[in-house]
């Protein structure tokens, strides 16, 4: 129903919009907050779920950091929570350690940084920024969230079963993940992991199709692709990546299900385990790795692209400057998106695949650094000669650039097959992807939350607490992940329960302890954010309509947009979203819905020429609410 309404009002104008207003009041608690088809509510649902999962994922990491920083420490006090996973001598069970690592990875990559980030902001921002009343299909959008919710419930449940959750690493390479004899996490836990991920993939596809359809079809009058905010560009390309990559993970997971439950041999061959030779022959574990990383690498960009978009937007707004090289930014987004599909095997340089293939992927991998470098330089130039206002969102955006540089540079080491041989599966890799993908994407997400909180909840978050949160987190993540580079160069392998068995890895106990303490402090600092978030949601200062003096369309809606987003007609777009500090303009921003006819003092020559075209438009509506 909602879909039909939305489409009608999109073309129909004011009369329908009023119907929307009436519609708003009829909603029951269930249709408004639970089975909502409103993109804003679904975005908030994703956000709250994402925060929940981030806390769980973070907590799991604290558990294994305790073991790594203080090997063999007495964890009896965790017995009420972890039960038999604390051994009789009070230490953490080595198999549960692996389960913790696995679940931390799965949760953070998929449930927090995919669903929590792109789910939240694609849903919330796409219709608001392109001038649409809702998503192309509100119902599919709702389904998308609820598939994700069921996936979450199953994944959460798997944490508590007797044989433990999946424990083969977040990549769940077979045969380890296929053989229950090999590790106890490959019993029921792995089955639940696969079911949950299958539902998760369905959720991503439902969401992705919707985002793509919405961006292509529901842009308001004047909102050409060349005038779209970079956020929307980023969400759009993220959805395309997800749509192309996730089905491959589904295929990989399905074949794994067959191998596990129906005796096929896609990934299994010549295995002797638990005292017997298994009947599997002819399968290849490499096949799984290829399929997994065909998703796995684009997944990295599915995580980071939305952050690129958010940071571009926040940075331009708060530097009071147009984003430098708007077209180059889109070009680099496109370049990264295309290249992200042809670099996957750089995760497999030492997997035993043909070395020639390694050379090809090394070359392609290092190419992808070029558009990434362009983005960084463009961000720096955006700051140059700006007039920077450090809102918490801006701090997080600057932090994002810093982390992206640090983590991106170490990618040059790992993308080089000759160097990767030594560093592969060491803490260097852990440091690399936690900076470039984990922390950077997290910072993008935080920038987004601080920036759009007023639009989401109609209230402001507290700045001072935001500053504190930023500095604690920024310093914290560097303290946690920077030392790991040294540990990695020293050759320490990842996913090791302890390093006491090897002379080669006996050093750095001090550094490991330092990292663990930093991790605990950083994690605790997130509670400040949790407080700020929920407190401000109800008791924060009331937000003005356009608190950051921003140009994009979402700030032309009422402070708390109702169902249908704009009470009257949807504003028309006349200009790109980055007219900040335009010479001659009265204020240092000109929203997208202000026609050039109204700003003769600041128009560039080719823009003055466009005034006549504006008049030709049969319905030039000057949105009076646009100027606050």
């Amino acid at each position, binding site marked *: 129903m909602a879909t039909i309404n939305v489409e009608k009002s999109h073309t129909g104008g004011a009369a329908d919009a009023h119907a929307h207003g009436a519609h708003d009041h009829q909603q029951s608690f269930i249709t408004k907050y639970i089975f909502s088809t409103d993109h804003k509510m679904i975005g908030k649902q994703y956000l709250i779920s994402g925060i929940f999962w981030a806390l769980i994922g973070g907590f799991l990491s604290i558990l294994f950091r305790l073991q790594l920083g203080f090997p063999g420490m007495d964890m009896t006090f965790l017995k009420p929570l972890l039960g038999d996973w604390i051994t009789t001598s009070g230490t953490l069970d*080595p*198999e549960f350690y*692996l389960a913790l690592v696995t679940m931390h990875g799965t949760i953070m990559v998929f449930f927090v940084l995919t669903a929590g980030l792109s789910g939240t902001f694609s849903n919330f921002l796409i219709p608001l920024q392109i001038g649409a009343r809702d998503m192309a299909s509100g119902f599919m959008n709702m389904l998308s969230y609820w598939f994700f919710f069921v996936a979450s419930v199953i994944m959460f449940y798997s944490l508590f079963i007797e044989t433990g959750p999946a424990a*083969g690493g977040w990549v769940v390479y077979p*045969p*380890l993940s296929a053989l229950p004899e090999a590790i106890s996490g490959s019993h029921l836990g792995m089955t639940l992991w696969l079911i949950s991920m299958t539902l998760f993939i369905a959720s991503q596809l439902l969401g992705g199709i919707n985002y793509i359809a919405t961006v292509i079809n529901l842009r308001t009058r004047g909102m050409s692709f060349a005038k779209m905010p970079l956020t929307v560009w980023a969400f759009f390309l993220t959805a395309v990546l997800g749509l192309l990559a996730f089905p491959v993970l589904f295929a990989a997971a399905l074949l794994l299900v067959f191998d596990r439950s129906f005796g096929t041999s896609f990934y*299994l061959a010549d*295995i*002797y*385990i638990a005292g017997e030779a298994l009947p599997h*022959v002819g399968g290849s*574990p*490499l096949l799984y790795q290829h399929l997994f990383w065909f998703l796995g690498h684009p997944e990295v960009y599915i995580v980071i692209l939305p952050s690129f978009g958010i940071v571009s937007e926040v940075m331009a707004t708060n530097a*009071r400057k147009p984003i*430098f*090289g708007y*077209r*180059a930014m889109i070009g680099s987004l496109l370049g990264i998106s295309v290249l992200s599909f042809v670099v996957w095997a750089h995760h497999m340089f*030492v997997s*035993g695949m043909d*070395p020639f293939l390694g*050379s090809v992927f090394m070359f392609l991998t290092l190419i992808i650094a*070029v558009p990434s470098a362009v983005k*960084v330089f*463009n961000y*720096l130039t955006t*700051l140059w000669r*700006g007039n920077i206002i*450090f809102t918490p969102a801006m701090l997080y955006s*600057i932090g994002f*650039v*810093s982390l992206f*540089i*640090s983590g991106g540079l170490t990618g*040059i*080491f790992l993308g*080089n097959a*000759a*160097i990767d*041989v*030594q560093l592969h599966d060491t803490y260097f890799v852990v440091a690399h992807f936690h900076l470039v993908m984990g922390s950077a994407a997290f910072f993008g997400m935080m920038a987004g939350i601080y920036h759009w909180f007023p639009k989401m909840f109609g209230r402001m978050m507290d700045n*001072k607490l935001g500053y504190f949160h930023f500095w604690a987190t*920024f310093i914290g993540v*560097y303290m946690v992940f920077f030392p790991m580079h*040294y540990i990695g*160069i*020293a*050759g320490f*392998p990842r*996913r090791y*329960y302890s390093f006491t*068995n*090897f002379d080669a*890895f006996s050093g750095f106990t001090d550094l490991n302890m330092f990292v663990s303490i930093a991790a605990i402090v950083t994690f605790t600092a997130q509670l400040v954010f949790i407080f700020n978030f929920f*407190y401000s949601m109800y008791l924060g*200062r009331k937000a003005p309509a356009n608190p950051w003096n921003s140009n994009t369309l979402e700030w032309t809606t009422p402070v708390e947009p109702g169902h249908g987003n704009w009470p009257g007609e949807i504003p028309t777009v006349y200009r790109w979203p980055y007219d*900040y*500090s335009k*010479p001659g303009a009265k204020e*240092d921003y000109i929203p997208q819905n202000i026609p050039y006819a109204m700003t003769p003092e600041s128009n560039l020559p080719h823009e003055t020429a466009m005034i006549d075209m504006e008049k030709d438009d049969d319905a030039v509506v000057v949105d009076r609410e646009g100027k606050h």
Partner: protein
Amino acid sequence: MFGILLAIGAVVLIAILLLIYRIYTLVNVVRGTEKKRVSKSNKVNAVLFVLFMLIFGGWFFYYSFAAYDKYQVPLASVHGLEYEQIFWTTTWICVAVFVLTHVLLFVFSYIYRYKKDRVATFYPDNTKLEVIWTIIPAIVLSILVFGGFQVWADMTDAAPPEAEVLEIMGYQFAWEARYPGEDGKLGAHDFRLIDAINPMGVNFRDENAYDDFIAREIYLPKGVPVEMKIRARDVLHSVYLPHFRQKMDAMPGMPTRMWFIPTKTTAEMREELNDPDFNYELACAEICGRGHFSMRKVVVVVEPEEYAKWYAEQQTITEQYPELRNLPLEEEELDETEGAGPVSEVVESEEVELSQK
């Protein structure tokens, strides 16, 4: 009782913090702080960025030099030298970029912090600049790629024919190493032949297997190319030799290989490091289950003469378990095993696989 007190204390503490926070927000409302476009915090944040850069940057450089010996793994292979060169070249380039971009990022943040009378420069694009900073990274990266190609090609090339061959098999949670014996040829293997006395599933129907021996410690000759044929018995493992800068996954069903030239004997390394307990170690680098962190095997590098002596002293598998020699499976028997080809085929396919590389 103590617990209850603690809980009450925590609740009181939280209540006090909440109260303070509430008062602080109300004071701000009265002062009208939020009405100003930016507060004093703007400058504080700008300064903090510069401080962060100086303190963290200083620490980074200090620690990188001070702790060099701690993170630098002793080096003992020809290929490792090439690795070190390309690693440090890349490092210095990256450090330069790292410093440059961070200085710009934080200094810009400081210099261009908000000032009331200043207007930001409307500077939407500059094609020339953008072309420059697309091309320069492309060139630098190409140089690194071609350096990498060279090293990668050297190390993944086929092993020289004179290479010493041995087989490494990973299983939960240890390694087995098999040497080909006098004839220099490893006997065939089949996973269906594995049992308690034949952990590697060596197929003794193949005569080449008669003089194969399994070594408790991996001995390698110094200065001679060594080729490792790698496989796994149950799940994935990864042969990781940090001192030789070598790593290769071990897979069930798909043999892999790697080769290198050790350059220092264990004794020489002990002397060099002034550590009489030093040993080269083989570790597992691919998650493989509960005991992943304990898959250690000692590697001993000796002079070639000593190696030959050690080699001759080893007891072959068939000497140890003569019954194995008498009990090879009949060809027909193996053929009948469900879904598998005859052993000879298994052996052939492996040879094809190896010669392709």
